[in-house]
């Protein structure tokens, strides 16, 4: 054995390899931050007319990106056919993906797609898009004549669609689906047992022991994605405390979380957990939905895309029915308001090379023909009026009925679109409350603290809602 000089070939190779690996953990993270300088682009618009309100150039091309999630993407191909029938010389390059942000965000500052359906778990944060001026206001789309009906595009939309897509006084996001949220149950089972779906927590707590006696868990929810339980929590707060309470919360008003009616709503959820009325375990959305379809739980809360998402595994004889979210008791301030609104939003990037075509394509999506196909293929309502009129789907019919009996307002919550910090915090705390690690009072304290922190942070652009 002998002692060698410091550097031999093996050591050199090892060090080289070490240096190569050295940069790997940071490399992905750092390069994710990098971008490059933008290109200038100009719209070479053609003559504008009533039939071609945005001056779409014949022979141009438009790149459309569709989110391929619970609603699939078959409906978008119908819209493409409608669009191409009118503009045969415009090339439509349509692609679909589940990774909207991953694929589209890096292109936003340079060469974005013309039309992006910004949806799913991997969506681009809306308030950032608006604050950065990265997306185009679409007020001219609202004012344009509708594709195949009387009046303007705005006239053809369901209530809530315009306000849901409006940020800082301008219309930015075209939501194409109209979603109704609530508690789903198996109509066949409930008829057989003679149960009626409860309207309030009071009624639910009376019914729950009967459900439990049959060996069924009264409730199941998606415990993985924090926004699922949050929908139900916020709906109960709205019903119990009334609309103004939620508007104040969204506007970061001082002590908004301590308004009358909010704590009782959260205490009802606390009791639901404490009384062990939830199916044991922590399941994600499809696992919990399957557990519900398998008859392990009586109620599941989710939106109207449920039927389409689970279409392959619905057992025979299972009647999917939608009932309203629960308020607290007969003393609720807004017991009839339904959690519904426009969802699945399209945005047009400010730097899109062919904005005229993007807007024209949206006009086709919002057409009567397009939205009827949408409702038929997705078993969900479109945000265009009358889309569900000719659809004979029992699950969709219960959603329709719920909407007909709805109160004067639709429940809508903005804080998660307004502020990413509150979005994350409210998801986390909802999960903690549902896991029984947080009491209702602690939830209120922590949400109030988070809201105060955002209110006092000057690096965050503030937003407000009036309606």
């Amino acid at each position, binding site marked *: *054995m002998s*002692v060698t000089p410091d550097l031999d070939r093996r050591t050199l190779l090892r060090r080289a390899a*070490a240096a190569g690996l050295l940069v790997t953990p940071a490399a992905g993270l*750092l390069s994710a*931050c990098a971008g490059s300088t933008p290109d200038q682009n100009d719209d070479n618009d053609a003559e504008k007319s009533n039939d071609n309100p945005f001056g779409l150039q014949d022979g141009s091309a438009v790149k459309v990106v569709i989110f391929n999630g619970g609603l699939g993407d078959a409906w978008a191909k119908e819209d493409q056919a409608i669009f191409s029938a009118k503009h045969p010389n415009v090339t439509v390059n349509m692609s679909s993906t589940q990774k909207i942000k991953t694929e589209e965000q890096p292109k936003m500052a340079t060469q974005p797609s013309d039309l992006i359906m910004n949806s799913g778990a991997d969506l681009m944060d809306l308030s*950032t898009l608006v604050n950065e001026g*990265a997306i185009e206001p679409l007020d001219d789309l609202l004012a344009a004549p509708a594709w195949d009906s009387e009046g303007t595009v705005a006239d053809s939309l369901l209530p809530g669609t315009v306000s849901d897509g409006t940020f800082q006084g301008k219309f930015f996001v075209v939501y194409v689906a109209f979603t109704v949220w609530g508690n789903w149950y198996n109509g066949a089972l409930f008829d057989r047992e003679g149960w009626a779906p409860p309207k309030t927590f009071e009624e639910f707590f009376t019914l729950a022991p009967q459900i439990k006696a049959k060996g069924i868990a009264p409730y199941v929810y998606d415990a993985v*994605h924090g926004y699922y339980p949050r929908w139900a929590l916020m709906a109960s707060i709205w019903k119990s405390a009334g609309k103004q309470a939620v508007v104040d919360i969204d506007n970061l008003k001082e002590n908004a979380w301590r308004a009358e009616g909010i704590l009782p709503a959260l205490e009802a959820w606390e009791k639901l957990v404490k009384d062990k009325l939830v199916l*044991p375990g*922590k399941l994600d959305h499809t696992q919990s939905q399957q557990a519900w379809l398998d008859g392990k739980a009586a109620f599941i809360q989710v939106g109207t895309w449920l039927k389409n998402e689970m279409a392959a595994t619905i057992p025979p004889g299972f009647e999917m029915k939608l009932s309203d979210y629960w308020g607290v008791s007969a003393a609720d301030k807004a017991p009839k308001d339904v959690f519904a609104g426009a969802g699945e939003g399209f945005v047009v990037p400010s730097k899109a090379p062919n904005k005229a075509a993007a807007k024209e394509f949206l006009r086709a999506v919002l057409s009567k023909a397009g939205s009827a196909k949408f409702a038929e293929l997705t078993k969900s309502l479109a945000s265009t009026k009358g889309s569900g009129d000719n659809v004979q789907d029992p699950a969709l019919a219960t959603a329709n009925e719920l909407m007909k009996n709805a109160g004067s307002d639709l429940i809508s919550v903005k804080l998660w679109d307004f502020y990413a910090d509150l979005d994350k915090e409210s998801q986390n705390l909802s999960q903690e409350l549902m896991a029984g690690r947080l009491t209702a009072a602690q939830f209120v304290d922590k949400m109030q603290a988070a809201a105060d922190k955002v209110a006092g942070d000057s690096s965050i652009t503030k937003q407000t809602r009036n309606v």
Partner: protein
Amino acid sequence: MRHGVARFVTGFLALPVGLYLFYVVWPFLQAAGYSLTDWGGYSDRQQFVGLDNYLRLFSDELIRKAFWHNVFFLITVPFFTIALALFLAFLLNVGGREDKAGIRGVFGSGLYKVIFFFPQVLSLVVVAVMWQQIYRADGQGLINGVLMKLGLVSPDEPITFMYDPEPFLGVPAVLWWLLLIAVWSGAGFYMVLFSAAMQSIPKDVFEAAILDGAGRFHTFFRITLPLLRDTVSVAWVYLGFIALDMYALVFVMTPSQGGPNHASEIFASVLNFTAFQKGQFGYACAMGVALAIFTILLAALQLRITRRERIEY
């Protein structure tokens, strides 16, 4: 003639070096540049803010939490992975019965080598998806299912793995469960690495030790481990990088990517949230640069501490 060779080699190297500079080094520099701005990530609007972003790092509660979670992995991932890999490598190479055939591994060691190496072949996301089923938090999960059949876990209270922030030894349980996956998926590779190093140790060294009456314990700690010092040190550095990353596992496995309620937040998950959800790319780039500096310092420190005279046989 020699001159021609140099030009020939340079010609071949220019392209890869150019690509490397453009796709690796340039983005690094860009990120460092962005870290001094308030860029939001979706536009070309940005303002120079100097070192504000770096100062913010020090008062950011979430970053502090994430930092300690990273430190936890930095200590545990290399330690447990190397310990397990060494143990396995020793058994497979010199742990077998001592008879006249000389030094060898336990029975069937060739097969074990393949099996233990297997996780290395799978992509980390595949590993994560597989472990989601193993960790599934109801009776249909592999672990929960078996334990429920054995009556060790009540069906009403399954083990919740990734959803469990309760501290175990002062560290959220979810981190320990993540650690288990990281060690499981890494040990095989380092076992092979250590096996190769052990095989390069001359058999007569072991034979001499055995003749002198050394048992397995002494053979390992007095001979094998000291002679593997170099390899272990490099492995430690590599594992340190893996521990500082951990991003894929946290992203795929944990609720809200860092949850429940920030219990598994790490540097990379906070960075991802800051950049892509909050739209504060400048600040996120500052986090990235800070992490890179930290990594480089750590590697330099580690290699320096373990530098020592080398034995050649």
